């Protein structure tokens, strides 16, 4: 259905998550489901944790042990298809790319949004970082309820609906 609606299925999403025991630390979730000629995720990762290879038409693979959760790939992916996920007791923490205005601010509560664009709960903004290297793509850290782990993908302002 992804190729008709733009919405990845739960199985597709889960296939990009490492086993839960790895998620005590933040890990990259790479939602690139097509063989497109592109490799900035691989070349931007300072730890060699994303593998594509010489043929750039191959989907990236995360080498989960090598991923430090630094977030560089999140703002390097031109498709905004990478986020970081981490599990805390009863909470899920994400780092997502964000390119809309207004830019969220620390401690604000925004809507948590799923892959179909629907509101699924609240998202607490922990930080919103923009340094020149990110080239205008803001890296937002948000906290949601743990049950949104496989559903959450982005945020929406409660003031701009």
């Amino acid at each position, binding site marked *: 259905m992804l190729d008709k609606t*733009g919405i990845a299925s739960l199985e597709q999403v889960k296939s990009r998550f490492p086993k839960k025991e790895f998620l005590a630390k933040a890990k990259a979730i790479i939602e690139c489901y097509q063989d497109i*000629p592109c490799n900035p995720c691989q*070349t931007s990762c300072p730890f060699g944790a994303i593998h594509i290879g010489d*043929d*750039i038409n191959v989907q990236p693979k995360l080498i989960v042990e090598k991923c430090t959760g630094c977030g560089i790939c999140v703002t390097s992916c*031109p498709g905004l298809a990478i986020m970081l996920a981490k599990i805390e007791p009863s909470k899920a923490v994400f780092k997502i790319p964000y390119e809309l205005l207004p830019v969220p601010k620390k401690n604000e509560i925004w809507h948590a949004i799923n892959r*179909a*664009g*629907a509101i699924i709960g609240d998202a607490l903004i922990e930080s919103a970082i923009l340094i020149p290297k990110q080239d205008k793509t803001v890296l937002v850290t948000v906290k949601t309820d743990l049950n949104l782990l496989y559903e959450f993908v982005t945020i929406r302002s409660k003031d701009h609906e």
Partner: protein
Amino acid sequence: MMTNKELIIIGGGPAGLTAAKMAAEAGCQVLIIERSPALGGQLIKQTHKFFGSELTYAKTRGFDIAKLLIDDVMKFKDKIEIMCDATVVGLYPNHEITVYQKGVYSKFKATAIITATGASEKFLAFENNDLPGIYGAGAVQTLMNLYGVLPGQSIVMVGSGNIGLIVSYQLMQAGVKVKALLEAAPKIGGYLVHASKLRRLGVPIYTSTTIKKAIGKDFVEQIETVELNEKWEMVSGTEKLIDVDAVCISVGLSPLHQLLSMAAVEMKFVNELGGMVPLINENHETSYPNLFVAGDVIGIEEASSAMIEGYLVGLIAANRIGYHHPHYETLLQSYHDQLSNLRSGPFGAKTRIGLAKLRGETHAR
């Protein structure tokens, strides 16, 4: 009066700029003739980060890529001459061209010419498609990203190729409500990461659906959509109305071949490449010796392939004129390899098939 030049490049977009840089690096004198007021082609309107590899500036935003390519050209001030706001209106045998610039016609004769004219947008036939408020995607990008003018407040995008998906995202970024994206084919045409990016912002994507008519008195106020069956026939009873004040049409591009047709080079219609394209050899040379082509004019692709083709053809054209780049063989091989790498995946299939058809291979895959 006729002015003589070594190499004339028609078009200052990604292919023309990289061709100029490479030819100048080899030692060649170059004249770039660009129709617009500024160099950069379509790149200057592109606010998104580009796909591809580092060699073609992946993860850099389009307008920044334009700056990088223009900077490269400006490093060769003694070798590269630039005419902007200048339209090539004639391309004749003996490598003569006529140029119209600010009310003045002038004539040039070149040893070699690279045509890098790019592509133009296709449009769609439907009732009332001439109502104000109905734009091509290129016009929307020019208004919005170049001049900071919104095309409307609520819009429907027609076409789910990469341009349709990307421009929809840019419209959302600019604060325009994209009410729907329509795609006549059963599947989304562009990269699914772009589609997902849009979908999560709440933009519904309707495949097997097209625009039947636009409704409005002085400007578009509503559109009627209709679903299509497997035979691409409209299914009556599936019509829906959507309130809009703008419609954006993004249904593909076709190569800007008119100058080449005027020069009477051998042409062929190849659907996979977007329309009429010139027959070329492995040097990207047309049937008219020393007339080369690079970029979308030889088949619709991405800016990344246009840039590599530009480097490749700049290298070859300079060599033909007598300027042998010190790394000619290595670079030549590298650009051929990069092009085949870019085209080797599923999204390169159309280009692979198209180029094979152009070469006259019947069992193209």
